[in-house]
């Protein structure tokens, strides 16, 4: 079991961190959440009945929700994107910086449940089935949340396409 968790962590470390960061809005808290989830999984030391990847993501999500609860009403400080302000990176293509910022803002404006669906599928690399399992949702519910999120993003980012 531990070997499975280790393998999943090594393969999805960035995705796990992205999911936690999308919930907590703070890098340190997101890393704490990933660490806490791994501790809990090792302590439980039991094989999941379903998809092991979804199981680990669900554990990280739960730990991130706990971290967020601990933060109280503190506002998120960072987004999941590594978006440099054009003025802070003069050598960066101005257009790329603006585009990335628009994408980050558009995703930040999504309702939480839709943002979660987008983050899990697009940025954490989970399949719809795994995402649904990790969120404990029916597949169709997750799919419709994702569709609605894409529709909103399409409208907001129309100028970029």
């Amino acid at each position, binding site marked *: 079991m*531990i070997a499975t968790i280790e393998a999943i962590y090594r393969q999805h470390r960035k995705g796990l961190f992205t999911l936690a960061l999308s919930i907590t809005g703070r890098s340190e808290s997101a890393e704490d959440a990933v660490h806490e989830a791994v501790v809990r999984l090792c302590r439980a030391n039991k094989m999941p009945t379903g998809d092991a990847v979804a199981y680990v993501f669900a554990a990280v999500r739960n730990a991130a929700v706990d971290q967020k609860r601990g933060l109280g009403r503190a506002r998120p400080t960072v987004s999941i994107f590594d978006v440099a302000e054009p003025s802070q990176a003069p050598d960066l293509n101005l257009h790329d910086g603006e585009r*990335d910022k628009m994408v980050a803002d558009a995703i930040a404006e999504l309702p939480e449940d839709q943002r979660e669906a987008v983050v899990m599928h697009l940025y954490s690399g989970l399949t719809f089935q795994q995402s649904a399992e990790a969120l404990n949702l029916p597949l169709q519910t997750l799919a419709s949340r994702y569709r609605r999120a894409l529709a909103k*993003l399409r409208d907001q980012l129309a100028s970029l396409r």
Partner: protein
Amino acid sequence: MPMKNDDSSLESLLRATPLREPSERMDVRVEAVFANHRAHAARRSLRLSLDRISRHRPAIAAGILIAIGIGFRLSLPKPKPPVAIVPETVASHPFQIEQDTSTLYNDGMIAGTDDGAYLQIRRRTVREIWYEDPSTHAKLQVTIPTEQVVIQKVEAY
């Protein structure tokens, strides 16, 4: 699935946005958890093994003694297999004696017709054959029983 052709370009655009990387500190902390857990599991496994050993100490001692005994036995020089002594024989033709012993049984009239009756006679013969090898005087006896049935018409007077 919510995937449409039109969505592919939008998804590509969204995926192109770079994500924030976790720090190395997170990896160090998580790897430490795994290492700690592996060490704990190894200690637990060793403890269980020692418990098992102490629980089955007499059986293990007996096993060790048997193993030492087997090792000692295997280290001894192996005894040579006995050499079979086969007497030399000369091929010779056996001679044989045959004896037939016959007994007749008259079963009497078994059928009757207008022109006569039929008499059944049985002859039981036992042929005994003795073979003997003149050089070794080995003997072999074979018995072959046979029965011959004769039905004879008896003319009416």
